[in-house]
């Protein structure tokens, strides 16, 4: 029973991170109908930037702030320079471009930082709650991860639902041509959407870095899990990203605990394939698949 509780808590923590990555993917999908495969590479770069800040004596919090800000900037630049030309072409072009960006970022990171994984400090203690007799597999740092992800999501939800800029962003995503006729500067809203998504991704990168270490390929699996979580919840649905992230986190935690950690990547693949075959639009998405 205790093992089950431990695995559940661990699942919630990793689920929060998958949810954050999923949210970044969902935000971009809603805005531009593109899956940003480069998200893994972008958050890897921003985490390396945070790492560099810490190397030069900065605090964890300064590194976090710098990573998030560089994420915002990177997202805006990528949308304006690389994505704008292919936004209206076939989905194939966007997939190739984002994948190309992923490779480019990994190559550049390899050149600048080398392939050896670097360690990244956690914000708080990683020793589980409790005492020497009963120690949970859930530490202050894990609590911090869950709280900050939930907090950021709540803030974003408020911004989108209650503010004017959120209204404009939603309009630009749902109906770009009509939005232009209403005076919305759709291009700017798309850039802003990408910036926010990359900022959320940067946060996820810093949160997961203590576990995965930091190297050019360390976040490939995180991207795949984030994508799977987004598909589970429905690429169109931010609440779906949360549910998808939590469920995937729990599922993979149980797989790791009861079947072996080697099977986790394959477990994610199986979950993804099953969801795609049974309910491709995800739990909260609108059904839109073809019949085989």
């Amino acid at each position: 029973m205790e093992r089950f509780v431990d695995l559940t808590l661990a699942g919630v923590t990793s689920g929060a991170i998958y949810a954050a990555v999923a949210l970044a993917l969902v935000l971009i999908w809603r805005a531009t109908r593109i899956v940003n495969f480069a998200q893994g590479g972008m958050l890897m770069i921003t985490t390396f930037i945070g790492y560099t800040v810490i190397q030069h004596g900065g605090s964890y919090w300064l590194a976090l702030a710098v990573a998030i800000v560089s994420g915002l900037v990177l997202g805006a630049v990528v949308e304006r320079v690389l994505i704008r030309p292919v936004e209206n072409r076939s989905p194939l072009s966007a997939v190739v471009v984002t994948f190309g960006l992923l490779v480019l970022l990994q190559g550049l990171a390899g050149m600048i930082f080398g392939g050896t994984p670097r360690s990244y400090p956690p914000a708080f203690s990683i020793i589980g709650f409790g005492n020497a007799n009963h120690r949970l597999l859930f530490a202050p740092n894990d609590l911090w991860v869950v709280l900050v992800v939930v907090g950021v999501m709540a803030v974003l939800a408020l911004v989108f639902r209650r503010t004017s800029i959120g209204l404009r962003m939603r309009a630009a995503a749902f109906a770009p041509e009509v939005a232009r006729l209403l005076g919305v500067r759709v291009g700017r809203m798309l850039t802003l959407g990408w910036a926010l998504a990359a900022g959320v991704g940067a946060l996820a990168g810093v949160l997961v870095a203590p576990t995965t270490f930091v190297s050019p390929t360390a976040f490939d699996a995180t991207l795949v899990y984030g994508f799977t979580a987004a598909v589970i919840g429905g690429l169109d649905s931010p609440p779906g990203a949360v549910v998808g992230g939590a469920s995937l986190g729990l599922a993979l935690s149980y797989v790791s605990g009861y079947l072996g950690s080697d099977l986790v990547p394959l477990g994610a693949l199986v979950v993804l394939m099953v969801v795609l075959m049974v309910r491709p639009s995800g739990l909260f998405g609108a059904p839109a698949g073809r019949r085989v």
Partner: protein
Amino acid sequence: MLDVVGLTASYGPVRALEDVDLHVEQGAITAVLGANGAGKTTLLRVISGLLRPQQGTVRFAGRDVTRRPPEALVRLGMAHVPEGRGVIAELTVEENLRLGGLWRRDRAWLRAGTSQMFELFPPLAARRSKRAELLSGGERQMLVIARSLMSRPRLLLLDEPSLGLAPLVSAQIIATLRELCNETGLTILLVEQNAATALSVADFAIVLNLGRKVEDDRAERLAADDRVRHAYLGM
């Protein structure tokens, strides 16, 4: 108010408009008539900046606005209600309305304006927090007209407002347009396939056929001209 000279526009190899001239009189309703595919929608899209013409100029309120984007034209006082209405289905009625007036950055107007629109179109008030996709055809048309009025335009472009509506409903909406024009001096450019409806409220009218302007006159004269009615208006 609006002057279009020598407008020529194509979609790829297909020529949709050929050397069209148009003068829209301030404070009046001008109708654009013609059969399907005559180029009426294209004309509105070029005027509002969604489509770039190959040749010709568009002058609005004394300025050359030929190649300016829709976002700029909205800020100059032009509002375009597109073909198919353009209701943003995922947003609520109230959100749709607010969106129309957001660019003005005038919070007082946003409040006052939405109240005015609910008075003008009571069915919208009853559904203010509902998602726009749940509205009926007539209610959607009211919503998009109200939404465009939220930007306090000087010129309103309307693309086939009566399409798909029951005759009674479309008559009400057209009547509302006439009232708006009479009471506020709003200039309206109205594209309609239903010529009878349009001519009943318009002051002026032009007829397009295969991308060219073939008639341009006062509405009552066109309505009385049998040759025009039979050849172009199916009346």
